[in-house]
């Protein structure tokens, strides 16, 4: 029981008359990597937005690390130890890599309130460590993000989450806009997280990727969780039939 990292019961979100998420029961255990799949508009992103505090849920309960939680915003979720790599990268294009990694939690050499002196050297060193740990190669740390490729930017965003996330990382389609090599690089980072035992929720459209990377697959359809299957007890065709509604149309809640 104590190895449950994240649990939701009856998680529901309505946007006016639109029932985007209905009665979602979801459990994530320590070290587990779970993929969230489903068609567009199936409720995947809505689900993520409820657990990361980006939006406030209509009904239901969320437990994180054994405590019932209600995050007032993404910052509260982050402080609790949930790091999110958003679909639209939360990076500042005109800052260098260390400043992006430490955005909002900069290291300070000398405290002068808003005019506190930054400890750029320490931020650089810690960035180098974080990038090494996640096997990300960035040629020049003092270059601004603007001049980097999509893959490099995504790697910075993930390295940023991976180096701070103490307890859970959520990635919303991290490879959606990336090329083959870059996708491989991101997937490699995800494998590294698995080895380090950092739990992950991966929202993805890419079933090949999902079967490659995660332990369990949760399928969303029309705002409901219609299946939660361990990787070895299912296959691509099975998942597709859940996504398209061939199977599980009668579905209720899965734990």
């Amino acid at each position: 029981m104590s190895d449950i990292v994240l649990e939701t019961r009856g998680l529901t979100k309505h946007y006016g008359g639109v029932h985007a998420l209905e009665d979602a029961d979801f459990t994530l255990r320590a070290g587990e990597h779970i993929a969230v799949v489903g068609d567009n508009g199936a409720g995947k992103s809505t689900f993520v937005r409820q657990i990361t505090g980006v939006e406030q849920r209509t009904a239901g309960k969320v437990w994180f690390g054994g405590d019932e939680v209600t995050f007032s915003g993404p910052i509260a979720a982050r402080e609790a130890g949930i790091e999110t790599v958003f679909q639209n990268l939360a990076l500042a294009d005109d800052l260098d890599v260390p400043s992006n990694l430490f955005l909002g939690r900069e290291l300070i050499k000398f405290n002068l309130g808003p005019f506190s002196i930054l400890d750029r050297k320490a931020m650089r060193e810690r960035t180098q460590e974080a990038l090494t740990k996640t096997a990300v190669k960035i040629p020049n740390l003092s270059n601004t993000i603007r001049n980097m490729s999509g893959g490099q930017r995504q790697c910075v965003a993930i390295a940023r989450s991976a180096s701070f996330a103490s307890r859970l990382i959520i990635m919303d389609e991290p490879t959606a806009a990336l090329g083959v090599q870059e996708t491989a690089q991101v997937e490699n980072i995800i494998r590294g997280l698995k080895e380090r035992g950092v739990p992950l929720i991966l929202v993805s459209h890419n079933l090949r990727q999902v079967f490659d990377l995660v332990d369990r697959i949760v399928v969303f359809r029309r705002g409901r969780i219609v299946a939660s299957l361990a990787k070895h007890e299912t296959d691509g065709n099975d998942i597709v039939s859940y996504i398209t509604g061939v199977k599980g149309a009668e579905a209720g809640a899965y734990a």
Partner: protein
Amino acid sequence: MADVGSVAGVAPKTVHRRQWPGEVNVLIGLVVIALVFEVLGWIQPAWRSDIAAQSFLFNKLRLSIIIGQVAITGIIAVGVTQVIITGGIDLSSGSVVGAAAMIGMSFAQASTYSRAVYPHLTDMPIIVPAAVAILCGAVAGFVNGGLVAYTKIPSFIATLGMMVTARGVANWYTKGQPISFPTDGYTVFGSGLHPVMIFVGLAVLFHLALRFTLYGNRTYAIGSNEEAARVSGINVERHLLLVYTIAGALAGVAALVLTSKNLTAQAGMGVMYELDAIAMAVIGGVSLSGGRGSIIGTVLGALIFGVITSGFTFLGIDAYYQQIIKGAIIVIAVIADVARQKRAARRA
């Protein structure tokens, strides 16, 4: 899955070299423009028999005039630069100079001439009018910042409103009468090279703040991607409030120097200064879309501004043409910025 380890190590095709700072381009621009005037100065007698060949650059008086001319608008530009880096704009600084000049000066008058707003408040120590002028600017900036940060109206509109309002305050304060005859001590801010020293001092101070402090990092972060800054836990609203307040306070400093130099305050002071200040920043490579630029760039932009103004006079070009050409230069600077961004976007 093939050997992913080696894939992760594949060198990306994009930029490896260190970025060329945009300020270098501005510096090259400054040198080129100055050299053009230098050459024109020497060959000028070829078409103007009334003038002897002379150097443009090697003239101490001219150089001190150039710097002196841009010092006051330069002080404003230091503040405007920071606002533009956050992705905003401040159109109110010229009017704020007018209002701060009037209100500040009313505390600076000498007892020998007591037709002031406050007849009993004469011969105050100079710290009083100085503090009042800067405070006036800061209050105006605070209101600007509050409107932009909390009501979410575009900075263009918020500061346009302040532009009209502050000019109104300047006119209302003495019903259009100028305020003159400050105490002897008050002249200290505007005499000799003091305006230049104040300009350079403030430029260095805020350059350091932008480069080495939390304040700077967050200013660039907000201008670069406000949403990213917000989800990263930066209090965007409070930071914007601070940046606009600083810009207002700097307009107050400019008012102080201006009135001290001219020994008078008039409600019409500072008209169009905001545009000169914005032009200095833009010529200096500060991007109007936010996130990019520096105080060094703005100082260089101010010098380009000063060199061009002085150079036109040096060549005897009519003041009417000067304005037309200056306007064109500003537009060209913005076009160059947009082109730079497109290039950068293609590379990424």
